[in-house]
């Protein structure tokens, strides 16, 4: 059900405590030293003073923002507070979080120094006070990186509105390598999220459920088997460019489900590990997907936003990026850009693709572009010469998986969870390899087979292994066409109509007839069968129903009896379906 915000909540009343302490004549503001918050109809009041930590209403009701009050002022008859923001663990981007070098406590908060965030807030957004335990700060100042700003680190015990389970924790201290508060995202404009569930998702219980969870396409495998060569090639390419501080392009092609995107992601993951260990210089990784944008020019906007956090119109973003990639910066990191579904970035003048491939060739670009598409000959087919030439000849094509590889993929995913019979796995992988070599398909079939196994087993406690019969059934469900069954299940008049279509085709020697011609046959056939011939409307309705399931292809129905009828199934299928009765 859709949620609508019609909830009434208790109104809070905000009052200054005492009289103004001082008055700023320039800004025309009064400063106070305390604020009283009380709930309507409730006697309890909360007092907020300078230096206190508070919770501020935000996007997420469960996780309000945390800040520290620095000043309480009244300007223009409006009550304001100047605050110092703190970021929760969840608000810090994961790649920055890694720099911490240890597992953060879930209740931990971080000093936030982003310049983008406004520090003046309306007092009416203050929810409550919160207790924060500070760890020792002095140690941090002596950390290795002198030129970076030192980072304060606080540990927070959150006191929700009437929470009483505040456990005492010893404050932890850890050296922090770098300052982290460079989140591009301000707490005020954080991205929205799907609300979190009240009960945690149930974990898989039996071996089959475990297998199913592992076989889901989304589960990230420990390693990517069967793509070692490709992995190594891409790794070497990106690593060398990043090391040298130059730029380059690579084109990766392959049919869907052959692990193109997964391999590139794996490469980036290991490169990031290497850069954390200082083996490789640090680099930015940006990913865009042609399918995930509405217009090719949005690519500029997305790249710019991911690179700098700025928002701009496509034209402006293109200009900014142009400037960024063509001028040398004082301390510029390399950028690795992954462009997925490249063919969607095609425009008539191809300027998006041109720019993407031109920036790496600039002297100060330091941009590595990895492009992914489905077709091997995309550069030749859709790109004009100057674009194709800039893309270069570094190409790689991912071959569809062979059955042995598919089998290995499933085995490595299952990782010794014993759920499948050996033969069953082989059948799946042979079948998929023969059809498409799409690993996604293979995993989906296996997943479905485990379900079938679970349903058909006599003893629900111990379902046993997935065997040939289960796999066969899953394959049948996924690949068999329903045309024959649909014809068999159709009503008598619909079947007769199909038969008369065939008769008319045979009479005309064509694969097309008008409804009127078929109707004559249909009525004759009804008389032969001893049924009352249908009226025109009834026959037309039957014809339209067959057209709606696409057993027949019809012209628009406004043509009435003159519309032409074609079959969408082979004649043999129709005959087979009708004869079998």
């Amino acid at each position, binding site marked *: 059900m859709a949620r609508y915000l019609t909830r009434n909540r208790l109104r809070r009343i905000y009052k200054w405590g005492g009289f103004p302490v001082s008055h700023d004549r320039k800004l025309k503001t009064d400063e106070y030293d305390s604020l009283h918050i009380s709930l309507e109809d409730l006697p309890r009041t909360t007092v907020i003073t300078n230096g206190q930590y508070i919770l501020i209403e935000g996007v997420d009701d469960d996780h309000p923002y945390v800040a520290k009050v620095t000043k309480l002022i009244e300007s223009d008859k409006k009550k304001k507070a100047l605050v110092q923001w703190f970021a929760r663990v969840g608000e810090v981007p994961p790649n920055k979080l890694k720099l911490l070098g240890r597992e953060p406590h879930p209740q931990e908060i971080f000093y936030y120094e982003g310049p983008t965030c406004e520090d003046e807030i309306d007092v009416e957004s203050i929810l409550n006070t919160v207790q924060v335990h500070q760890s020792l700060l002095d140690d941090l100042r002596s950390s290795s990186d002198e030129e970076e700003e030192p980072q304060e680190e606080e540990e927070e015990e959150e006191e929700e509105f009437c929470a009483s389970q505040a456990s005492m924790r010893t404050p932890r201290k850890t050296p922090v390598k770098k300052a982290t508060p460079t989140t591009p995202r301000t707490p005020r404009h954080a991205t*929205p999220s799907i*609300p979190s569930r009240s009960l945690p998702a149930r974990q898989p219980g039996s071996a089959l459920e475990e297998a199913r969870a592992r076989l889901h396409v989304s589960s990230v495998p420990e390693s990517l088997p069967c793509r070692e060569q490709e992995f190594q090639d891409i790794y070497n390419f990106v690593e060398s460019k990043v090391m040298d501080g130059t730029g380059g392009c690579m084109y990766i092609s392959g049919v869907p489900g052959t692990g193109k995107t997964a391999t590139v992601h794996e490469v980036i993951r290991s490169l990031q590990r290497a850069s954390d260990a200082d083996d490789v210089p640090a680099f930015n990784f940006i990913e865009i997907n042609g*399918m995930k944008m509405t217009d090719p020019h949005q690519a500029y906007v997305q790249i710019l936003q991911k690179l700098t956090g700025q928002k701009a119109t496509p034209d402006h973003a293109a200009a900014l990026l142009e400037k960024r990639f063509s001028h040398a910066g004082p301390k510029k990191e390399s950028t690795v850009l992954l462009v997925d579904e490249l063919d969607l970035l095609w425009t008539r003048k191809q300027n998006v693709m041109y720019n993407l491939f031109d920036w790496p060739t600039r002297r100060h670009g330091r941009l590595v572009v990895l492009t992914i598409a489905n077709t091997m000959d995309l550069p030749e087919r859709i790109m004009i010469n100057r674009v194709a030439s800039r893309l270069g000849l570094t190409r790689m094509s991912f071959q569809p998986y062979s059955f042995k590889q598919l089998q290995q993929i499933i085995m490595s995913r299952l990782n010794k969870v014993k759920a499948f019979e050996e033969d069953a796995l082989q059948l799946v992988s042979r079948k998929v390899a023969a059809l498409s070599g799409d690993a996604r398909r293979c995993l989906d079939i296996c997943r479905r087979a485990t379900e079938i196994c679970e349903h058909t087993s006599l003893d629900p406690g111990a379902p046993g292994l997935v065997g040939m019969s289960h796999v066969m059934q899953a394959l049948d469900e996924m690949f068999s066409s329903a045309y024959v069954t649909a014809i068999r299940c159709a009503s008598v008049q619909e079947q007769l109509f199909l038969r008369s279509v065939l008769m008319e085709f045979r009479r005309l020697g064509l694969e097309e007839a008008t409804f009127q011609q078929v109707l004559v046959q249909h009525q004759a056939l009804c008389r032969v069968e001893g049924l009352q011939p249908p009226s025109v409307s009834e026959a037309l309705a039957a014809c339209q129903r067959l057209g709606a399931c696409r057993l027949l292809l019809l012209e628009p129905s406004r043509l009435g*009896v003159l519309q032409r009828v074609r079959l969408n199934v082979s004649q043999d299928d129709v005959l087979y379906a009708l004869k079998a009765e």
Partner: protein
Amino acid sequence: MSKRKLKDSPMPIGECISQVQTLLRERLCHQQLPQRPEGVDSQHKHLMELLKRTAVHGESNSVLIIGPRGTGKTQLLRCVLAELLAEEDVDKTLLQVHLNGLLQTDDRIALKEITRQLSLENVVGDQVFGSFAENLAFLLEALKKGDRSSSRPVLFILDEFDLFAHHKNQTLLYNLLDVSQSAQTPVAVVGLTCRLDVLELLEKRVKSRFSHRQIHLLPSLSFSQYLQAVQAQLHLPDTTFPDTTFCYDWNASLKALCEDKSVEAVLLRHFNSTKDFRSLHRLLMAILCRVSVNNPTIKPADLLDASRLLSADAMTNVLHGLSILELCLVIAMKHLNDIYDGEPFNLQMVYNGLRAPAAAGGGASRGRGGGGGGAGPARVPTGEAHAGPQPDHGGAAEVPPVPHRCQAVGRLRLRLGPEEGGREERRVLHLGLPRRVCSGGGLVLCVTVRHLSQSLRQLYQHAERFYQGKPGVKLVR
């Protein structure tokens, strides 16, 4: 105590009838879900398991429910959802997004609708949601932030799934299915469609991301099951209906009705023509409308009447309302249609064709009229020359004088069909606008006969039935 008393005491008949009407109308108008859809147990189980795994385990899935119209796809889904939401902690967990391909005709509208239904839009407070690109990025980011174990699962229901495949680049489908195949917020994408070839519509990268689970719903009932279904649809519940005696009588009469031979024949004809449950419900609704205080049970005659009403041919109905002149024109056109084998012809040819048999009947053979003059009405001298163009007034069977052709067109267009300006009129005769001006200055009209698949004999029969006994009418054979 009082309840039992109420149940025992006979209610006035009017009260009972209105109860029956409310109860059955709810059932026939698909407002009330059945306990469990019949004959689709395996499909029900499959879908139930699938959605349950999404709701409880946070596993992402995608599935298509395919079946011809009126086989209960939506009903199946609604039943499963009702059952699923009845379980505690699922109803608080599962978020639902309902989309329909006929309403959300492009991705922009669909995205707006998704953000609205997920109530993500108010999250940014006063920020105005502008562009399509922002919306897409926003939704994708929201979905990406979630993960399997902590986010609430989202159920996307795409009705008329095949229409979403016609959106530009299939962006929405790609993104939804991509989320279902990656470690983001758990989603279940359920598509409903009546096209059997729907998978061929998907682009290959979209297709690869679809899990290829298909639940086929095909009507496989036999005629005896169909009869039982009819009976079940009209059956009154013994336990909950307030008046037991009325309920007993009703159910007994219903049983007798279904055993009647003529009723069985009507239902068999209906069954042969379509297995669509909606069309059965239409028939039963027509019967239900006849139930009143004077007619408290359903009689076989009611069913026959209702069936005749519903299966009447629309084209034939239109012919019933034609005047003699119009009918004569139609007959003449039918002749010409046979002669020219469906090629178009003009009004002049129709007029000539009209005159020939009429003249033979009237015993007066005249020369062709109205060849040249566009200025004045071309007159054809007939026996009663000034009968005027109104066929009802004068000797209609005789050829009326041909009025000015433009007038004739106007009149024909107005008077054809039962309603003025109704659709039927145009479906019988395609009277084109004047296409070109003849060399002589007269307007020549192209007239094509459409939808005239009845034989000429049938046309005459209709004419006879309609005009029999009217004074001054003599039918021409």
